[in-house]
């Protein structure tokens, strides 16, 4: 009897121990969940300003309307549906269906403006609630369906997470740290005012000041959209940089999207072509090749070579764009008329290792490291893995892939007296200057080489393929280079091209460096003369229009001569 009693008691005690010791944590949490209320206090997301402290993004409060169908009596359904459809424009039949369903909760409409919420409140519709939410609102862009600088800024999704661009890259800084209030509540789910409260204030996100100029950004987007439409192109991009600091002044893509309405946008448009896509830069690369060869002492602007219009390398015959025999020409002429044979001979004169080192010095063998999310790059193979023909084509910008940021930063070396300025978009985080700006810039080529190359690029505008970019008054002060490269598809080059133009002005004291890339242009008449798709007809006029805006807005004057 005693044993039975002991066994029974043991069973009871062990069961008690199970609930009180083993399951203590879980049960305590369940109990706490019943009487404790934990309210998260969201942190205010930091604002974003341009270089002139013009606000680019504003936090606004929006409202979402929801219904609890089980709290709407059958007799009230029609009144509720009518009220919601009249104020929010919701489909009345759909609302009626929702109200008749067994669901406990359903959104009627999400994220509408305060004006609508103000109209809805006085109706006092049973079972209808309003939920406040914070939304990022971006400035209007060039058209109704776009916002300013959408591709570089990105957007913030409904969970408060930054997506794409600066919003994603600086999520941690912009988002801040949310706080909370923890209090007790009664059976009716009301807060017990005199109960114990735990409270922690949120830490708001920090503001960002960008190097962007909203006015120039707008002008760039406008000129680009007009140009892409005129050229019947697939898309286009413009990137403008401050030559001295590497700060991005404008970052425009066309087509772009409306960041205020991202949930109705084709996700393909979110991809940014400037940093998220690579392209073959074409003849723009000759600036890098010839600069490197001059810096190595292999050539000078006056070095004369013979250009028969074709060169055999690694078993391939590689031609100039016009397949003409140009005879004896100097390197200034080679750059002005964009001769592939000249570029290949310059590369051969300095040698493969020096050429590869030069690519490294110009930052083309690694990502640019720009502070915008989702940088994409296709790095060249190691120096010893590249064939002779690869070296040859790379010298004039084919068979080598870069993104636009890499390419503009490389050309900017020439504009910046031979120093590599790390590209960046954010100048200040809160009150702190971006550390990139405080680091000394790397000397990629000598200032003398940069000056020589600048003079050669001026000749491109004055006597070569850059003639359509000339701005009145600055004809002698512009430096530039065109680029046109065929687009490969499945390993075969097609007739579609990337057309580009890069340039800076005033040549001796540059205020900006700009790269324009147009993808798959089909310029009117190009079916008869394919050269009409070249950079000088497609990208250059866009460059010129934007440069004119910059000259006016920034009060740029020509250099004295």
């Amino acid at each position, binding site marked *: 009897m005693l044993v039975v009693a002991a066994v029974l008691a043991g069973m009871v005690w062990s069961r008690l121990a199970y609930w009180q010791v083993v399951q203590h944590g879980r049960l305590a949490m369940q109990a706490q969940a019943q009487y404790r209320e934990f309210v998260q206090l969201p942190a205010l997301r930091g604002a974003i300003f341009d270089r002139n402290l*013009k*606000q680019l993004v*504003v*936090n*606004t*409060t929006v409202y979402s309307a929801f219904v609890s169908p089980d709290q709407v009596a059958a007799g009230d359904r029609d009144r509720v549906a009518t009220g919601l459809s009249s104020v929010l424009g919701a489909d009345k039949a759909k609302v009626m269906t929702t109200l008749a369903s067994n669901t406990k909760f359903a959104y009627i409409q999400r994220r509408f*403006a*305060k004006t609508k919420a103000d109209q809805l409140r006085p109706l006092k519709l049973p079972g209808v609630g309003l939920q*406040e939410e914070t939304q990022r*609102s971006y*400035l*209007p*862009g*060039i058209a109704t369906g776009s916002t*300013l600088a959408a591709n570089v800024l990105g957007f913030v999704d409904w969970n408060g997470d930054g997506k794409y661009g600066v919003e994603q890259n600086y999520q941690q800084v912009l988002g801040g740290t949310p706080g909370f209030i923890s209090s007790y509540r009664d059976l009716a789910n009301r*807060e017990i*005012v*005199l109960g114990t409260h735990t409270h922690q204030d949120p830490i708001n996100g920090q503001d960002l000041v960008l190097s962007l100029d*909203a*006015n120039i*950004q*707008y*002008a760039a987007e406008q000129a680009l959209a007009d140009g892409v439409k005129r050229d019947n192109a697939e898309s286009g991009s413009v990137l403008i940089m401050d030559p001295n600091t590497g700060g991005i002044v404008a970052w425009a893509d066309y087509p772009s999207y409306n960041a205020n309405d991202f949930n109705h946008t084709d996700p393909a448009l979110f991809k940014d072509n400037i940093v998220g896509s690579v392209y073959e830069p074409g003849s723009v690369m000759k600036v890098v090749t010839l600069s490197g060869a001059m810096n190595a002492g292999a050539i000078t602007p006056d070095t004369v070579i013979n250009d028969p219009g074709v060169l055999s390398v690694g078993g391939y015959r590689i031609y100039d764009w016009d397949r003409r025999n140009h005879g004896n020409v100097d390197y200034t002429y080679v750059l002005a008329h964009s001769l592939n044979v000249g570029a290949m001979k310059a590369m051969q004169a300095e040698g493969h290792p020096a050429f590869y080192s030069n690519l490294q010095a110009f930052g083309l063998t690694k990502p640019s490291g720009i502070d915008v999310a989702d940088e994409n790059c296709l790095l060249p193979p190691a120096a010893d893995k590249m064939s002779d023909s690869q070296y040859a084509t790379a010298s004039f910008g084919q068979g080598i892939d870069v993104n636009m940021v890499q390419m503009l930063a490389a050309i900017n070396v020439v504009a910046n007296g031979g120093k590599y300025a790390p590209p960046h978009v954010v100048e200040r985080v809160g009150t702190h200057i971006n550390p990139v700006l405080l680091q000394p810039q790397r000397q990629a080529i000598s200032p003398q080489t940069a000056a020589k190359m600048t003079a050669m690029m001026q000749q491109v505008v004055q006597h070569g393929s850059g003639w359509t970019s000339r*701005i*009145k*008054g*600055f004809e*002698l002060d512009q430096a530039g280079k065109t680029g046109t490269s065929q687009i490969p598809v499945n390993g075969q080059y097609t007739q579609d091209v990337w057309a580009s133009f890069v340039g800076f002005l005033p040549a001796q004291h540059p205020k900006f460096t700009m790269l324009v890339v147009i993808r798959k242009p089909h310029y009117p008449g190009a079916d008869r003369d394919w050269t009409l798709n070249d950079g000088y007809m497609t990208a250059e006029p866009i460059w010129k229009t934007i440069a*004119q*805006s910059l*000259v*006016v807005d920034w009060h740029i*004057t*020509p*250099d*004295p*001569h």
Partner: protein
Amino acid sequence: MRGDRSTGSANDLAKDEVHVLTSTRILARRRLGTAGATPHVTAQPRRRRRTRGFVQVAGAVAAERLRLNMFGHAYVGVGAVVIGLLFYLALAAQITQASYDMSRLQDQQRQLIAEQDQLRYQEVTMHAPAMVQQQAAQSGMQRVVPSSYVAGSPVAIDLTTPLGASPADATPLWMRAVATVVNAVGGTRDVMAATKH
């Protein structure tokens, strides 16, 4: 009565001193004063007096005056409870009211913040390049790119050249004398301002 007792024997005094409202020091002095002749007489052990509290005293006085029976006591008790309950209810109502006020004010604050955000967005949008251009176009203004720019030219003056000595006054002596006379007669005039150099 007490004065009579104080004149009695030491033993009587020791017995009654517990009923007298005097300080211990006074009692000790009295003991020493009277017991000086009989130092070996041991004092009776003192019994500590239990003081009655105010409530007890007041209750006793009230009961004595009101002559409350058992029901009277119950009524008073209930009354006290009712007063306490009313006090509690008033306090609770005040707290509830404050709670409602807080909720209302918080709601109002949220709405004002929302309105402020809306106004800020409107303000920022008004200064956005797109709106500026749109308003300018509505006003009939057009953005015109200057047809040409004046090209810079080298500075004609060599600013680095030393200035040198000031030029000597080449005015003839007779002219200075005439000027002195004229100035003295007709008042001073700045003749140098009209001089061509």
